[in-house]
């Protein structure tokens, strides 16, 4: 029987990862540029949660600020990438532009960690905020918050896509950028808002991470592997596929590795790498992911 803490870890992790995967795919679909700074943007807000907790507040109060921070950074990144794209820069150049932001945020995170170390006399190289968490009926609040946030975001997003004018405009832009332009949709505005939103939810999800897990400045780089794996498994161009992929990868990383670690105890530290293997196999065997498989079963 799998211990409760492991199951809870898997659940929290899957909610966070699935939202992150969905956001990454959304950014990819809109501009055909994978955002290499994505994980870093998401995990930059962990330091906000840390700061708020150190100041004595409930960690969740950081959430709205995390949304704004992630959104703002993502918005600025969009402006740079859109500018270069209009100039005719190749995909290589556009990905380099995302790397520019990745580097700045990476440096920023570390500088802030150093600053915290000075001011709060705390080694922010590795921290976990689980002790600052609230308990609701002796269940860690993070469980409920991460579930509510993820489910809420998916519902909100789906409704927005279907019901609102903005959502329809966004679908049009994702489908065919030029055609949407010709039809009078302000594509630049739609994409700026979309990227702000995605950055925001990335920041939101990221800010929840340290409330359960241990955090260090390299988590972003490692999570990028898992996010990539989730998107590959789900289907590179499918938003809901990535959502599903996020759950699958999260569960396999935690539950499957746990089960394997009963026989091979050393495997537990290599969790992130197992996602990489799954991604590699998926890329070779089913390149269009689960979404592609479903499409094939339906139509083809």
């Amino acid at each position, binding site marked *: 029987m799998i211990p409760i803490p492991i199951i809870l870890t898997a659940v929290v992790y899957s909610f966070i990862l699935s939202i992150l995967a969905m956001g990454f795919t959304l950014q990819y679909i809109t501009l055909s540029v994978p955002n*290499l700074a994505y994980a870093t943007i998401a995990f930059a807000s962990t330091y906000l949660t840390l700061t708020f907790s150190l100041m004595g507040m409930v960690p969740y109060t950081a959430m709205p600020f995390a949304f704004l921070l992630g959104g703002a950074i993502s918005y600025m990144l969009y402006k740079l990438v859109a500018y*270069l794209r209009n100039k005719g*820069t190749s995909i*290589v150049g556009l*990905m380099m532009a995302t790397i520019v932001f990745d580097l700045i945020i990476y440096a920023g995170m570390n500088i802030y960690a150093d600053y915290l170390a000075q001011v709060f006399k705390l080694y922010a190289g590795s921290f976990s905020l689980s002790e600052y968490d609230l308990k609701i009926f002796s269940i860690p609040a993070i469980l409920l918050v991460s579930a509510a946030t993820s489910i809420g975001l998916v519902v909100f997003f789906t409704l927005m896509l279907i019901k609102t004018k903005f959502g329809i405009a966004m679908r049009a832009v994702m489908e065919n950028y030029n055609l949407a332009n010709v039809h009078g949709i302000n594509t630049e505005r739609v994409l700026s808002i979309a990227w702000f939103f995605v950055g925001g939810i990335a920041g939101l999800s990221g800010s929840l991470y340290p409330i359960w897990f241990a955090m260090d400045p390299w988590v972003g780089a490692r999570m990028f*592997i898992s996010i*990539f794996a989730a998107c590959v498994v789900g289907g590179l161009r499918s938003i809901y596929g990535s959502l599903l992929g996020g759950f699958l990868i999260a569960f396999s990383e935690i539950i499957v590795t746990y089960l394997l670690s009963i026989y091979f105890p050393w495997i537990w*530290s290599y969790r992130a790498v197992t996602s990489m293997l799954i991604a590699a196999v998926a890329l070779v065997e089913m390149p269009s992911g689960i979404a592609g498989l479903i499409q094939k079963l339906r139509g083809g």
Partner: protein
Amino acid sequence: MIELTIDILTFFCVYVIITLSLNFQHGYAGIFNLGLYFPIIVGALVAAYLPGRLAMLIYNIKGLDFAANNAAVISLLRPNLSSDPLVSIMLLVVTLAVAMGLCYLLGFLSAYPSLKLPADYLALFMLCAGESLRVIGMQTDWLAGGVMGITIINPFWWLREYSYYGMALFAITVTAAVILVYERMCNSPLGRLLRSIRENELTSASLGKDANRIKRDTLTFSFTILGLAGVLHAFLMGAVVVGGYTRVDFSFWPWLMMIIGGTGNNLGVFLGTFGLVIMRRIMIVAKHYFWFLPFNVVWFEPILLAAMLAATLVFRPQGIFPEQPMKVSEYVRKVLKLEAKE
């Protein structure tokens, strides 16, 4: 002062090998790979694992583990290797051969997904592969000392007080050979073939060229040379700390060096590497001049890299020395070494 110069020079050598390999892969063949550090780490890991243990076998040192009792083993190996140039050189050669052979294989295996994936996802895949290898290296103590790292042998200890210079001279010689090899290859019909595949794979195929095989061979060759760079770097440092092989230092900086120098132009890449290596080394040495920075100067490097990358992308994406295809008369004179016709 001499030490500083040699330090810069050797650092430059390693990076030239890396950037020329990148230019070969991307500037010539058009393969977009952000996980450059993957074969480099492989080379470093081989250098961390193999020569020390082989030396232990040769000198019959038992009861100790190279990784766990690193300091003790090194102190036992040093006197032995200091008086045994033959074994030292043999260890160096074997390490290089194994590392390059392993990288050749890995390049071959990596080529399989690389040819099926769209360009941007290949780049990501290689980046994740490199990061995964780094995670593995940092978690596994017996491989390369895990997070703490591991000290390795110096194949030039037999030069006593000149052992560092010996290693440096070796590095310079190897680099010169690599530069020569790449120059020859790039200015030959192969270079032309690679560029044609970069420009238009379909047209290339319609000229009878097997684009997939050629891209695979390019990647494999490039991997092998990058493994060489990893081994050299490890021996020059005298130690392997896997955590130090970050994507910023060994993937993104080389990309910037190539882009600023001039993608597709070996000379441009060479000069770009030179300029940036000098800049970085001097920054590290002249740390105290950066007193005005409110933060640790270590973090200034990625910010500087970001700023330079952004500036290049916006103002001069083709680099300082853009690619210049050769005129026919030039080609005939310089490459074929014949009299110019017509």
